[in-house]
């Protein structure tokens, strides 16, 4: 079984929104039609996006840390949005685990978006169907694209390589190794959705040094210290010994 997913390294993400814009560009240009934008140059622009980068502040001033947090569909292994769909428009692909919406079957009842605890789904106001991240399903299998470019648009565009893409069911894949060795974690594990996408935490390189290591116990100077205390009434012998 294959389960394609993203692994997002929060230690590396700089919050540049390149993944947001490249995602929008790719997915608004595809065969499924544009991602609706309402009033894009006006006072209150709004529109459909599959991916957002949010920013959080961890800690209290002055000990704070900025965390940039890209957020998209997590392609859960047990997606709560799929069984609630009354038409079967929302489905999880058996072959690669991608959660998709069949735009031709969706009736726009919004129930799946209520059933997603992450808010990963958006109703397209123009087409009146539910939309969400497709892991660029129209790109990753396209044989006209050079093989090394057959990845989601967000992964290709990330300037810091904070986004990894691969099969999380293959224990030797890059993403599985990253999750295993760099502390990858899922979001809101409390709901049992088993998100496929994982996040790698902020990491700090620290060295733990024990006091013993600072003071050499076997310092030869200490071993061979043959000096004697000097008596108050110093004689020449004191210096000659």
């Amino acid at each position, binding site marked *: 079984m294959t389960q394609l997913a993203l692994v997002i390294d929060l230690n590396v993400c700089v919050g540049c929104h390149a993944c947001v814009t490249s995602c929008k560009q790719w997915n608004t240009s595809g065969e499924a039609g544009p991602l609706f934008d309402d009033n894009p140059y006006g006072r209150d622009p709004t529109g459909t996006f599959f991916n957002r980068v949010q920013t959080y502040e*961890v800690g209290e001033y002055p000990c704070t840390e900025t965390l940039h947090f890209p957020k998209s569909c997590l392609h859960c292994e047990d997606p709560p949005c799929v069984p609630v769909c009354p038409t079967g428009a929302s489905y999880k692909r058996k072959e690669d685990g991608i959660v998709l919406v069949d735009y031709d079957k969706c009736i726009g009842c919004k129930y799946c978006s209520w059933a997603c605890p992450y808010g990963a789904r958006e109703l397209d106001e123009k087409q009146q169907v539910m939309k969400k991240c497709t892991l660029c399903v129209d790109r990753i299998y396209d044989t006209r694209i050079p093989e090394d470019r057959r990845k989601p648009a967000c992964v290709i565009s990330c300037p810091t390589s904070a986004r990894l893409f691969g099969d999380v069911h293959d224990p030797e894949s890059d993403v599985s190794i990253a999750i295993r060795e760099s502390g990858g974690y899922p979001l809101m594990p409390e709901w049992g959705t088993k998100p496929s996408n994982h996040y790698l935490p902020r990491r700090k390189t620290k060295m733990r040094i024990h006091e013993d290591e600072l003071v050499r116990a076997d310092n030869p100077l200490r071993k061979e210290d043959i000096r004697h205390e000097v008596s108050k009434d110093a004689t020449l012998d004191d210096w000659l010994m």
Partner: protein
Amino acid sequence: MHPAFSVIFLTTLIGVGQGLFLALFSSQAYTSVNVLPTQPGDYYAVGGLIALLFLVGGLIASIFHLGHPERAWRAATKWRTSWLSREVIALPAVMGLIALYALVNWLGLDYDLYGLGLSGQVALSVGAAGVAATLALFLCTAMIYAAIKFLQEWASALTVVNYFLLGTASGFTFATAYAALRAPDLASFYGGWAIALSIAALLTRSASLFRNARIKRVSTLQTAIGVRHTHVRQRSMGMMGGAYNTREYFHGRTVAFLKSVKWVFLILVFPVPVLLLWAGLANASTALLILAFAVQYLGLLFERWFFFAQANHPQNLYYQVVG
């Protein structure tokens, strides 16, 4: 959640229709064993037709909730997993059985089906199937909300109980007003049950308000982004213009407004209609009984608005700060 008027009207209107049908059926069942005075068939036929109109009204309201109503037939396909799909099947089933119940009563079809020598066996048999479908519809409607486990205000058996009791209370209140016009002998039967159901609904709805005021949130900002620190706050939700995420899951009103709606519905749904029912029955005043239903239905619109607005979706953790 953002309360959608289509769903508010859908759930309240079909609640009245289902409750009215249960009232008609129960009175006809009582008359067949001579506990209540017998009524002509057209009384139940017209009553059934009115119940059907309430359900049709709810169905029309639901169309406004859909982005593609022309594809709504597809919604019957996933009944194995989706309560919404089950509702889509149960609603026309209830409508069909109520229509058949009305027709049987209108035509006066009767036959000694079970050899009991009692009248109205055909109508009551169709009606019993209608009751089963009606109860199933109450369950489906409520479970649509109660089945979403992370909407903690809804994920409770009280949601099912409240949908049933509020629907039947309003239906029996309507039946009281209808009987006052067509069959005054039955008004006190319906009225008594309407009062009892309203009081029972007050108790269970209060229980859910009590429960919801003390909910311990399972998801926090810490679990949402996976950072273990007591001080985490959002600085930017990643956009400034708003999106579906900021429109669909927030009611957009103040806490004071929400609180005031709660008191409005607590007064309009329970004490006022109960007093009006009591006064209307005591004085045999049809006008007061009609007013009782009007007030209770208006109150139910507030109740349903509050039901949706109070539910706090965990995705809101990700959409706290513009900037």
